[in-house]
């Protein structure tokens, strides 16, 4: 008998990413200037790499405990308390994962049942929605708007809550919009959530990349929220450690226990060498974050200034490393804009609709590139916009 391949029903329902299609076109060009990737252009700071090398030299290459090295969980616990005033017990309330992506996936897998509704703020990271389908649950999209600084408004949230709502995904600082939620914004959300039995997944991977006067506030630090929030984060963005694949989840014991159960069978443990590097990052990496943030901040100001001078409407991003200008005044939609910009000027940016339908009319520009690179890309984009308006 011939083998028959039957794919998972949920996977079949997941649409291919707009980005994939776009990248195929982008790959055809050689002289391309790409402002598309979503990872730091900095190398992992040397002292952190050295800690990884030392772990290798000393042969610390065995499995770690399932939840991660206790020393690392202790560092994470201290860090969370010092930076965000949230307290988590290293032994029971922290799980070290393979990037924060795994933390998000484990949360979905352990907290969602078929038919559950997951409220997703969009435009946002394009992983949240498809993975909800994979868990057999139902994504409910809450659109955010440029006029609100892409913040989630309590009345918008209230409107979407039903008896099936289980989880709210809070993606701030936000990829791709660069929006942040300040304490007062979070308090308003907390007030709505308190009236429900919902949980919150707060993806705080960009927490350290906040350019406003006041640093990042975690919703878990708002009264009554800690017991219903899973905070996911990691080392990729803050310490430029994407390839190390190391992240973590912090949540109440009951939730972390369930996630650990899943993690144990699916993953076993996060890479041990990376965990040793992670300890060094948290112990001695605060200065690296400051230096990288100041560099990103310069680029952020530069791009926003150039885009405004080009006549585009552009929300001034307060976090992450993306600018999300409104290109609807050009008369093109997001994909047309990106494709034309690529073909005519060999500059790659990502169409906003890749991050949800509400991203239509916008494009995402990453500034995790050298200033030299950014200046050249902005010059080309300016020419492109001028030529468009002359037609």
């Amino acid at each position, binding site marked *: 008998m011939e083998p028959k391949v039957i794919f998972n029903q949920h996977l079949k329902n997941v649409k291919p990413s707009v980005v994939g299609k776009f990248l195929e076109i982008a790959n055809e060009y050689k002289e391309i200037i*790409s402002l598309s990737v*979503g990872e730091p252009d900095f190398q992992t700071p040397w002292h952190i790499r050295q800690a990884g090398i030392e772990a290798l030299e000393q042969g610390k290459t065995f499995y770690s405990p399932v939840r991660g090295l206790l020393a690392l969980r202790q560092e994470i616990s201290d860090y969370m308390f010092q930076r965000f005033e949230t307290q988590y017990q290293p032994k029971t309330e922290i799980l070290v994962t393979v990037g924060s992506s795994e933390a998000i996936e484990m949360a979905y897998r352990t907290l969602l049942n078929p038919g559950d509704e997951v409220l997703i703020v969009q435009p946002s990271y394009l992983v949240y929605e498809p993975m909800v389908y994979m868990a057999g649950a139902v994504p409910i999209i809450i659109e955010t708007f440029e006029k609100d600084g892409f913040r989630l408004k309590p009345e918008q949230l209230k409107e979407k809550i039903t008896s099936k709502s289980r989880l709210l995904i809070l993606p701030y600082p936000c990829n791709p919009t660069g929006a942040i939620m300040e304490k007062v914004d979070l308090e308003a959300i907390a007030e709505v959530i308190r009236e429900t039995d919902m949980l919150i997944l707060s993806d705080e991977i960009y927490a350290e990349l906040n350019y406003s006067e006041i640093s990042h506030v975690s919703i878990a630090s708002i009264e009554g929220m800690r017991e219903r929030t899973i905070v996911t984060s990691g080392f990729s963005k803050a310490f430029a450690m994407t390839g190390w694949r190391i992240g973590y989840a912090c949540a109440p014991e009951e939730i972390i226990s369930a996630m650990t159960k899943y993690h144990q069978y699916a993953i076993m443990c996060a890479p041990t060498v990376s965990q040793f590097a992670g300890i060094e990052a948290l112990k001695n990496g605060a200065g690296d974050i400051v230096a990288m943030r100041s560099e990103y901040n310069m680029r952020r100001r530069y791009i926003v200034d150039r885009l405004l001078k080009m006549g585009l409407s552009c929300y001034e991003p307060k976090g992450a490393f993306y600018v999300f200008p409104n290109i609807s005044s050009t008369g093109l939609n997001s994909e047309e804009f990106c494709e034309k910009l690529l073909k005519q000027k060999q500059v790659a940016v990502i169409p906003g609709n890749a991050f949800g339908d509400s991203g239509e009319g916008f494009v995402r520009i990453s500034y995790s590139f050298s*200033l030299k690179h950014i200046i050249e890309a902005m010059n080309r984009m300016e020419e492109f916009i001028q030529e468009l308006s002359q037609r």
Partner: protein
Amino acid sequence: MEDVLKLLTQNARLTNSEMAVLLGKEESEVARIVEKLQEDGVIKGYQAIINYEKLPHIPVFALIECKVMPKAEYGFQEIADRVMALEEVDSVYLMAGNYDLAVYVKGATMQEVANFVAKRLSTLESILSTSTRFVLQRYKQNGVILDDKDIRDPRNMVL
């Protein structure tokens, strides 16, 4: 002030208005800082970083290590003054270690540099000996990698 200097070190052609945007300062404030840095002599000039290999005639660069007899009252200053006055000399440093003055020169040919060393430099009375080292290849200059082969981004777009 340090942030302005850092930017100018990376790219001296940035305008005051560009630096103002980058640093989140007023243009007038940046202008004031730059002016003060120039007045105080912190900024001594602005130069292009040149990859001479791209030019039709590639000049010759040499480092000449000089041992010097310092003068009783002047120390090394007097000889340094005389060496730096020579127009072939690009840079002069006083060094710790096996020799005293490091003299960087640029000439059209090796012969020209050799003549300079033999006739002008080594004849100065305080110079005890010289040792000339010709540069074979310049890879990086003032923090800039000169070779412009593959500068493509090594990062993969995963999402």
